[in-house]
């Protein structure tokens, strides 16, 4: 049980911080409302009123989100490798270069096919 104590403490600290920040913000934050601030947060789609038949929504955000996942996964792989770099040696380096090159190929494809252009 002692093994789990730090996790428990971390969870309590994390939850405490989140609850504290959210509950204190309405009292301390400046209130300068404008049109952009009243918009739906980040996704660009108005949840209400719902257009008839569900309506159409732009795919831009989905492409961005998918690209984010690609690079996110890349970082997830890079972290443990960087931590154990001295132990993994040349083999680890070559493997990592190969991995990054393949991700780069996907990136080049998206870039050349204008997947990074917003409009």
């Amino acid at each position, binding site marked *: 049980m002692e093994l789990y104590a730090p996790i428990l403490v971390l969870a309590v600290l994390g939850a405490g911080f989140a609850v504290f920040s959210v509950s204190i913000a309405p009292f301390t934050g400046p209130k300068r409302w404008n049109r952009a601030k009243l918009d739906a947060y980040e996704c660009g789609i108005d949840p209400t009123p719902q257009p008839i038949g569900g309506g159409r929504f732009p795919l831009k955000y989905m492409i961005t989100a998918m690209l984010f996942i690609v690079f996110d996964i890349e970082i997830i792989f890079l972290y443990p490798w960087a931590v*154990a770099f001295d*132990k*993994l*040696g*040349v*083999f*680890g380096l070559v493997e990592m270069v190969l991995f990054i090159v*393949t991700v780069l*190929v*996907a990136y*080049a*494809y998206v*870039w*050349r*096919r204008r997947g990074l252009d917003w409009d």
Partner: protein
Amino acid sequence: MITAPTIEYFALAPLLIIFGAAIIGVLVEAFAPRYLRRAVHVPLTLLSLVGAFALVILQTVRGVPTTPAAMGSVAVDGPTLFIWGTILVLSFVSVLLINDEEQFVPSAAAVPGSAEEEKAITEGAAHTEVYPLALFAIGGMLLFPASNDLLIMFVALEVMSLPLYLLCGLARRRRLLSQEASVKYFLLGAFSSAFFLYGTALLYGFAGTVDLLGIRERLAVGGGGTETLLLVGTAMLGVGLLFKIGAAPFQAWKPDVYQGAPTPITALMASGTLVAAFGAVLRVFWVALGNDSWNWEPIMWGVAALTMVAGSILAITQTDIKRMLAYSSIAHAGFLLVGVMAVGERGQNALALSGLLFYLVTYGITTVGAFAIVTLVRDPGGEAWHLSRWAGLGKRSPKLAGLFAFFLLAFAGIPLTSGFFGKYAVFRSAVALGEAWLTGLVVLAVVASAAAAFFYVRVIVLMFFSDPSADGPTVVTPSWATSTVVGFSAFATVALGVFPQPVLDLAEKAAKSLFVQ
């Protein structure tokens, strides 16, 4: 210092060539101008397949490795090399069919019939991504039956399936049907992958390893109180694998997907994916769970019986040529499962395995030929799928109808076609065990074959003994590629039906080394 893993690059070379060519294909898509892409893709794809095939031959000649490669995660043994050769040949002819540019949509993302689609057509847009996607799928097909580790197998399953989900949605005609096929295949495929993954986790819980040989050893030792994990894990893994081969009751996706997908992709799926998936089924159930056959064989018996009966009977009611061929594929999966049953420590492994390998070759080649002919019979709105449109085709173009009739007879397993020896080899191995319940299954399989022969013959009668309608479909002049595919399939179907021995010997030699155990 962590010791670097050893990787047998020579043993894995066919895989590396295919995946390397696929990545180069993505770069071609990114940097080559539009008018050049096809000119680069077609030779690149075909050459990589030829190169990989040559390496498979070279490895077979130089002696089959007896230990798994890449730290025990990929087993390049006799059966794997045979399956690789088969998949590469089938992929080669399927890519020749894909080469027919008429089949693919200019812009899949555009709504059917919209202004965007018009614009893409006038601009001369084309989805040349088809080639790298097909190569990724083929690479996955190669890795799937070779994986010696459940996690590698799962990765291979996804590498194989994800490009296929996309490819299914790229048909030029009947866009909505194609998109429906794509979505259905994706949702059901993802669902079955989840089953596979959960089964992997449970088997890991049972054996403490995802290595197939490790699971085998754990089963050989026996004992322990985690039998539930083993049984539920086996069932889940089975659902994931049986979905891919389209065994009943997991067959529902097959007709819809085979119908909606562009016909060359259907040919690739019906031949290559089936071969790869059977390789994986054999590896899981013979290598990992071979010592546990008394637990899974009764279920497999039921699945095999249900699959062949469902495939044969539902095919009779079909009015669409592609759906009929899909149900035929389901029935054939059932016949192949009979071979999977002939397992265990009963000394029949090599016989059953060689029969299965031979059946896979014959069925794959005939399937590609049949779908190649489907691409040639066209209405103004695309291929003529409805069976009524095929009426009297034998009178208008006897050569084409004759070839199609021949392929159908091979599916039915008439002597002097490859299909006969395929069925014979598999059924013989099951009967040779001399166990009543397996012999009973073979009897059921023969009866189902007879029922299946009924709907094949019905199509032949329709083609030759009914009058062609005035506004019947046109038979387009085949391109050199399509003629090559049809010619090759017909030749191989005859050759394997008359002189099956060389390939049977090859399959036997491959089967002798069995799976690495």
